[in-house]
């Protein structure tokens, strides 16, 4: 099963490597990992997408909690939540493809944020599936470069991850 684990961690040097080191040392999967400081810069929030049986996910959350610098861990995918990912795609945009790319971007509610005579950079936000289907919908030969942030997520309503 796919799980989205969110955690708050002290914003200190080396803290991230404790998290990633734990995953490799114990042979847990990481599908994606995002990290950035929160509104309180003494803390960072990490979102990890991992795949594993319930037992393994339980161990992952326990082991993460055991790390001294980890303040709180929540499996946000246990209940209603929102996931978003940001993707930037650089595509070839020449000839008839130029109009087609613009149209595709509009259909997926993307934004063209860089334009040259031959290329566009399209910015797209959404859940993983939406970004995947955008890639699927494009002619592969026209994709020059893609970059994705990985998933970040938040619980719906009153479910709040805060110290």
């Amino acid at each position, binding site marked *: 099963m796919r799980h989205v684990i969110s955690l708050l961690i002290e914003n200190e*040097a080396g803290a991230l*490597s404790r998290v990633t080191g734990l995953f490799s040392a114990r042979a847990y999967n990481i599908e994606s990992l995002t990290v950035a400081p929160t509104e309180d810069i003494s803390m960072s929030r990490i979102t990890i997408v991992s795949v594993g049986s319930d037992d393994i996910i*339980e161990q992952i959350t*326990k082991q993460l909690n*055991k790390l001294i*610098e980890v303040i709180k861990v929540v499996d946000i995918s246990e209940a209603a939540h929102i996931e978003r990912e940001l993707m930037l795609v650089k595509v070839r945009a020449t000839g008839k493809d130029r109009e087609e790319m613009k149209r595709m971007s509009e259909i997926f509610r993307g934004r063209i944020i860089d334009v040259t005579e031959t290329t566009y950079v399209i910015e797209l936000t959404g859940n993983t599936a939406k970004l995947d289907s955008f890639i699927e919908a494009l002619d592969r030969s026209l994709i020059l470069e893609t970059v994705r942030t990985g998933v970040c997520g938040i619980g719906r309503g009153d479910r709040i991850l805060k110290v």
Partner: protein
Amino acid sequence: MVLTGAEIVIRCLQEEKVEYVFGYPGGSVLFIYDELFKQDKVRHVLVRHEQGAVHAADGYARSTEKVGVALVTSGPGVTNAVTGIATAYMDSIPMVIISGQVPTAYIGQDAFQEVDTVGITRPCVKHNFLVKDIRELASTIKKAFYLAKSGRPGPVLVDIPKDVSAMKCEFAYPKAVSMRSYNPVIKGHQGQIKKAVQLLLEAKRPMIYTGGGVILSDAAEKLTKLVRQLGFPVTNTLMGLGGYPATDRHFVGMLGMHGTYEANMAMQHCDVLLAVGARFDDRVIGNPANFAEVPRKIIHIDIDPSSISKRVKVDVPIVGDLPEVLDDISKLLAAGGDRPEEKAVKAWWKQIDEWRGKDCLKYDRKSKIIKPQYVIEKLYEVTKGEAFVTSDVGQHQMWAAQYYKFDKPRRWMNSGGLGTMGFGLPAAMGVQLAHPGAPVACVTGEGSIQMCIQELSTCKQYRLPVKIILLNNGFLGMVRQWQQLFHGNRYAESYVDALPDFVRLSESYGHVGMRVEKPGDVEGALKEAFKRKDDLVFLDFAIDPTENVYPMVQGGKGLTEMILSEEL
């Protein structure tokens, strides 16, 4: 007052009432050694190899309730210490390791004796710190001691760049530590404790299984009280020996790969299992699938939530400090006035006694060659069960665990988790320093002892009268046993040719050495050795090279699939 970083380090150690620091000097820690030199509250023990320093601090910690302290230099000082740190980590031993680091400006430049200490030790410490700002030095050391000792204990490393130890800063030692990200649970959940009591009262075939947690949390007394209150059988893991008096009739021996027949059978066939400060590891329960075949209810008390339901699904998890939780259970039992299922438990004991009747630790007592089991039995008798016993890793370790009856906690020091050969002698040094005048025996093999034999020199320097009980069979015995049983008698590289003359070797270090070759001489030699209170005596026992450790559960097999001694 304004102090240098090095002065601050020493002041912190004094504030923590550290008696001994085990270490080895080098470039990056010279300022710290200079300050050690100028005072006499914290005593330094100069080892001969950094691995020895960490094991010695480890032995010191295991045999007391204190934190062990080691001090090493950067680069190779740290890498040599890693085996010791990993050993302590696997067995959850409270320890603070202070390491020197190259000056902050040199970090990352491949400087002389530079190594990424925090990176290298990260997976084998409870936590580690690199102190880049001298203003954080005192509070970091305070945190290190607090982390090492609290919750599930473990080694904590503080890496101090050389320039930080030379800088100056106002010193004030913090009185307390508070960390928002670290709050170990002490009190067990009362609802869960009630459920546990209910299960214990309903049990027809109860079993209590306890591990190193009982020793580490000083819960032996509370455990003993609870076992007697319930009248249930109890088994200890290798790490938990001494957690319950081995001479008590409720004790069914150690369990696991080389556990007793009765302990393993009872463990497998019980209907309610109370696990206390133990972690169901592979050497203890064998194959988890096999273990799970028999339906039973499991109550698991541990301070570390990640130890619970890791290898075996648990029905009643209780996170908390063992003495607190055991006390709560005892009190609840006493207050309720209910008694366990007397008739059923009696029948269960009858079954256990039947298993016990198999006498699985039987060995050939008429042998003309010295049997290792006999040496340990005599060691037990001669020391009246009062010795502090350290061991290395292999057959001798198992024989010591099986045949020395530990009635008290903190008397048995061995590398259970990591299985580190070379642990025994340096650990014994730490134990002897912590308990001057007490009998300390290091049970070892000719393979293991040579992995840290340089520490014989340290023993001379500090006059540590450790008694080395070398069970010399000329083989890496446990490897040979596996090769005999599972690899078609092909003894690949398990025969150690060209062994030194251990008597002359110990004499050259300034100690007393004795070679014992006949069973009739064993007792006399041991008596003579322990009579020499001020001497390190190295006893080289020529034991039967064909002797194996039984019972044995092969790796990956179920607990009841034991190979028993041919004597049975």
